[in-house]
């Protein structure tokens, strides 16, 4: 047994352990060839969609801003390829809706001259704290774990609050996904420099990198390297879904509990994903905006599960072609992991900043089993990491008892899916909770408007 297994931590409440299926864990990243055409959605983040600043027939270079942020909770979008803008059109994206995207026909691979394309590691941080946040905002960086919240918003500490430490999320608790794992292994030092930059931006002295112990090699690599980076420590974590949920991670690592309805900063913490830390490194040290990311393309029937560097806007079909085409028994294609990812209804949907994986599920696993009656076994209550009563929230939604839904804290649900995953009666608990949550939110909004 490795020595680090001694101080494994985890969150105390609920959780499940789905089979891991990290099929692509040992497969090094490869660069996916440039597609002929990319469609880059202007809304790849939480917040206001960016505003296009290019027109049809404009020539663009890699790294050029093609859509500007609109307000604070928004971010820039950059050209991920060089070529000509053919049009700005509505394109199907992973939400299942058609939304505005900038379509570029690829021509060569011409980068903006100020971007440093070399692999040489630049350790010296010469940018000041405020400047860092500004540059991160300009580089269009969002949370790359899948939540896609603009990173500069998280780094801007609200008045009256203070951050005393940073947590880097290398948990990757979703089954199948390995993109963060590969980044930690292949870009170990870059991640640490990126982490240092984030610490400098937040003016904090301490940082933990939380990693589940099914990535022992990544833990070892970072542990070995981080001695050269004062203040940064690696925290091994139990394989326990949803360990990577922000609130669960903070509880596990620091034993601090984010108050209901609150944010990590309320307990003095900022959490960023390892992929985000790498993107920050590239933005600050290499002048490279967020134009590509690692995407795990995997599935039980996939010929060649892979981890690919993919330019933002590349159609999912190109990724599938790379791994040997769509298996014959394909039933479902998921953007993200199997617990929280979104099912795609088309393979032409473009890869966006939040696309951590493309998971292909065989048809026999693609359908849910018919729902049976609730036998009140209370497993859903036991696995809820937020201490809610999922069975009750489902019933209250069905009965449209929205006041009681609010009282029973439906808004605290993090939609991790542990309840529906566990239910022996195959009840679609989370579907109903989402519906109830949405309705309660709109009721609250209306109530506040009246005041």
């Amino acid at each position: 047994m490795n020595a680090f297994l001694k101080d494994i931590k985890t969150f105390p409440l609920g959780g499940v352990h789905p089979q891991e299926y990290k099929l692509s864990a040992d497969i090094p990243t490869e660069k996916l060839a440039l597609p002929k055409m990319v469609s880059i959605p202007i809304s790849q983040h939480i917040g206001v969609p960016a505003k296009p600043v290019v027109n049809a027939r404009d020539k663009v270079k890699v790294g050029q801003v093609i859509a500007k942020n609109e307000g604070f909770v928004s971010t820039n979008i950059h050209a991920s390829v060089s070529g000509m803008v053919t049009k700005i059109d509505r394109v199907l994206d992973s939400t299942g809706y058609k939304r505005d995207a900038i379509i570029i026909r690829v021509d060569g691979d011409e980068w903006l001259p100020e971007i440093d394309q070399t692999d040489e590691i630049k350790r010296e941080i010469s940018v000041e704290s405020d400047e860092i946040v500004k540059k991160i905002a300009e580089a269009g960086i969002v949370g790359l774990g899948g939540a896609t919240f603009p990173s500069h918003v998280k780094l801007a500490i609200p008045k009256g609050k203070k951050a005393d430490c940073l947590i880097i999320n290398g948990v990757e608790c979703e089954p199948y996904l390995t993109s963060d794992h590969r980044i930690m292994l292949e870009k170990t030092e870059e991640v640490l420099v990126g982490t240092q930059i984030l610490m400098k931006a937040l003016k904090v002295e301490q940082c933990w990198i939380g990693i589940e112990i099914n990535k022992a090699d990544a833990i070892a690599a970072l542990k070995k390297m981080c001695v050269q980076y004062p203040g940064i420590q690696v925290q091994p974590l139990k394989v326990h879904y949803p360990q990577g949920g922000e609130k669960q991670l903070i509880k596990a690592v620091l034993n601090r509990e984010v108050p209901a309805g609150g944010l990590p900063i309320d307990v003095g913490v900022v959490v960023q994903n390892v992929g985000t830390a790498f993107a920050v490194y590239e933005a600050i040290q290499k002048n490279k905006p967020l134009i590509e990311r690692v995407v795990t393309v995997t599935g039980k029937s996939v010929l060649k599960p892979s981890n690919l560097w993919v330019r933002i806007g590349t159609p999912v079909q190109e990724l599938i072609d790379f791994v040997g085409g769509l298996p014959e028994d394909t039933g479902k294609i998921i953007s993200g992991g199997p617990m929280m990812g979104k099912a795609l209804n088309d393979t032409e949907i473009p890869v966006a900043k939040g696309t951590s994986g493309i998971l292909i599920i065989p048809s026999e696993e693609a359908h849910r089993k018919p729902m049976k009656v609730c036998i009140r076994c209370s497993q859903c209550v036991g696995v809820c990491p937020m201490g809610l009563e999922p069975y009750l929230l489902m019933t209250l939604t069905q009965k449209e008892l929205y006041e009681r839904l609010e009282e029973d804290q439906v808004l605290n649900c993090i939609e991790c899916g542990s309840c529906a995953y566990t239910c022996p009666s195959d009840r679609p608990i989370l579907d109903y909770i989402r519906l109830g949550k949405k309705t309660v939110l709109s009721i609250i909004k209306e109530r506040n408007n009246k005041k």
Partner: protein
Amino acid sequence: MSSQLLTVSPSPHIHQQQQTVSNLMFGVVIALTPAFIVSLVVFGVGAIKVTLAGVFFCMLFEYLISKYLLKKEANLADGSAIITGILLAFNLPANLPIWIIAIGSLVAIGLGKMAFGGLGNNPFNPAMVGRVFLLISFPVPMTSWPVAMESQWRLADGVTGATPMEIFKEGLEAGLPISEIMGQLPSYFTLFLGGQGGCIGEVSGLALFLGFLYMLYKKIITWHIPVSLLATVFALTGLFWMINPAQYADPVFQVITGGLLLGAFYMATDYVTSPMTSKGMLIYGVGIGVFTVVIRLWGSYPEGISFAILIMNGFVPLINKYVKPRRFGEVKPA
């Protein structure tokens, strides 16, 4: 690839494979097997007869009521009627006439379960409803126990005798000193292994305990209800024993005899009729323990667990309403 071939649904996209409703129910059946084997040794043919009759009639009535009264598909495959049948039978003497078992099954399934809408909707434990109905309606056959290890292979007219609990209570009423009453009983070790008269399922604490461990291991139930229930019974009876050892039996005797272990491991843990949160389960277990002790020590019945479970079943909706899990983030902001 044409897009209409893809399935689209909200997350989660995977589901655990180990536990389905019928898996859970059959897990309970497996857990009850050791107790059944011991009852075969102790009571012989009678145990088979009563258990099969219980299972048969419970399934039959579930089927008939679903099909002809509720006019919906009977779901016998979920195994819940089988469990009710086994648990009802386990709470009956091995020499009970079959027609009484049929009535008990009808009450358990019809009144205890289907009248409320079937599986998942019944507030009271169906097997307990059936058992208590029989106990009140047929007090004599329900309390004439075949003597353990004597009449195993006779189909009728075996020798009957009293349970340890009855011997104890009657002895007290006759004014015998405790030491003399205890002298009439087998050793605790024999009692725990299976040497007591009584209902089919309650004779061997050891076998019941093995089944309990199995259910814990398979995560079919959690420890909360059985442990809080047994701890309460042990503590309360221990308290009275310490106050007056001439009047009250010691706590070990109280825990290993009678239907307490069967009730604590298999009846009180019934999913449908027990609370949904671990805190609620602890309250429920303590409540059953208190009522059991009160009935055993001061009630007119020697045994109290069935009544105690039914009483606490009635409190479950209240417990669920007022006892909430510990919410994440329910702390003062730092």
